[in-house]
């Protein structure tokens, strides 16, 4: 059991890091996506340039929230801890897809550059979500086994306490 638990803790730490990087990727993707949608709905490009940062700042609370508060409550213990090496490395990778200037002046970005930024972040987010899904399967399998041992009396909470 201690080995199982240790394995679970290590997987969970990686999962937490991947989830952080995933949320950062999604946040940036949604900022870029907003510009993509704006241009789609405004084919003559009559938007006022230079005002982009102010309007994005204004919209950030909506852009950065999950709209419908993230699905049914998961009954999962959630915590917010310091990012580990995995998270920081992935975020550094994400930083190479777009610079602060790219995002701040996104209304002036050329059509190809915008598509490239969107594509890069989108595929990185998909990659992170796929890794995260696999980690969830692993962690959930470990937790099911840990739970089984408690249920079948192979482990007791007294030894834990």
């Amino acid at each position, binding site marked *: 059991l201690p080995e199982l*638990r240790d394995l*679970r803790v290590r997987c*969970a*730490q990686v999962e937490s890091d991947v*989830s*952080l990087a995933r*949320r*950062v*990727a*999604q*946040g*940036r993707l949604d*900022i870029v996506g907003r510009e993509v949608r704006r241009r789609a709905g405004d084919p003559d490009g009559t938007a006022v340039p230079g005002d982009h*940062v*102010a309007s994005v*700042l204004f919209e*950030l*609370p909506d852009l*950065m*929230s*999950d*709209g419908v*508060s*993230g699905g049914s*409550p*998961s*009954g*999962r*213990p*959630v*915590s*917010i*801890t*310091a*990012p580990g090496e995995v*998270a*920081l490395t992935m*975020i*550094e990778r994400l*930083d*190479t*897809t*777009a*610079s*602060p*200037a*790219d*995002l*701040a002046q996104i209304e002036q970005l050329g059509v190809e550059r915008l598509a490239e930024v969107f594509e890069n972040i989108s595929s990185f987010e998909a990659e992170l979500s796929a890794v995260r899904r696999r980690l969830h399967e692993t962690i959930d399998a470990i*937790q*099911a086994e*840990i*739970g*089984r041992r*408690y*249920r079948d009396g192979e482990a007791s*909470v*007294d030894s*834990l*306490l």
Partner: protein
Amino acid sequence: NQNQLDETWARYKDRAKQSDRDQLIVYYAPLVKYVAGRIAAGLPHNVDQADLVSYGMFGLIDAITKFDPERGFKFETYAISRIKGAVLDELRSIDWVPRSVRAKAKSVERAMSELESLHHRAPTDEEIAEELDLSMTQLNNIYNQISSLGVVALDEMLPFGNGDSMSFGDTLADRRDGPGGQYERVETRQLLGDAINRMGEREKIVLTLYYYESLTLSEIGNVLGVTESRVCQIHTKAVLQLRSRLQS
């Protein structure tokens, strides 16, 4: 692009121009998405996530203003803790827990601690209901109301947990945070462990599996052979009991 990012930071620290600061805010805003998403997971669904993000943005702006890139630390680490602090501070100051529910929680805790000092053991639900002159159904309804507020409400009212912790689950998880918090955390875990140890069997199992084994309520349901919503009630009762014990 990494250079552009470093340049933006250097320029901002040098000249403190609004335009550079705004660029950094937009660039790091997704950190607020992360924090707000996790805090929202422990709150009832009627809490507007956009509000949480707005509170968090203050923490982000504060972090950008205060961060010193020269010191070699990672901005993300510093920002996440400031954002979390800002959201929790604001939540506390707007006192978002409905008065009526807070009052019910208090009356249940009082009944628990009175029964405990009387019988020198953890009280049963029947005893608590009788003490409060309620039916079992009514007592369970109270547990349901309290748990529908989510874990942040429950744990948040714990007497230790530094102001920065959103739940004592946080406090326990923080043990990989390094030397600074280590001593406190060990002490806290022991305090907690002792208090949990003297509880009724089912409450003990739920608290231990949830906070020490990180199982979900539904997985704990499989262990106990009960529904997830039943585990939720037991969890609420157990945390209330923990509070009444730690406070006395």
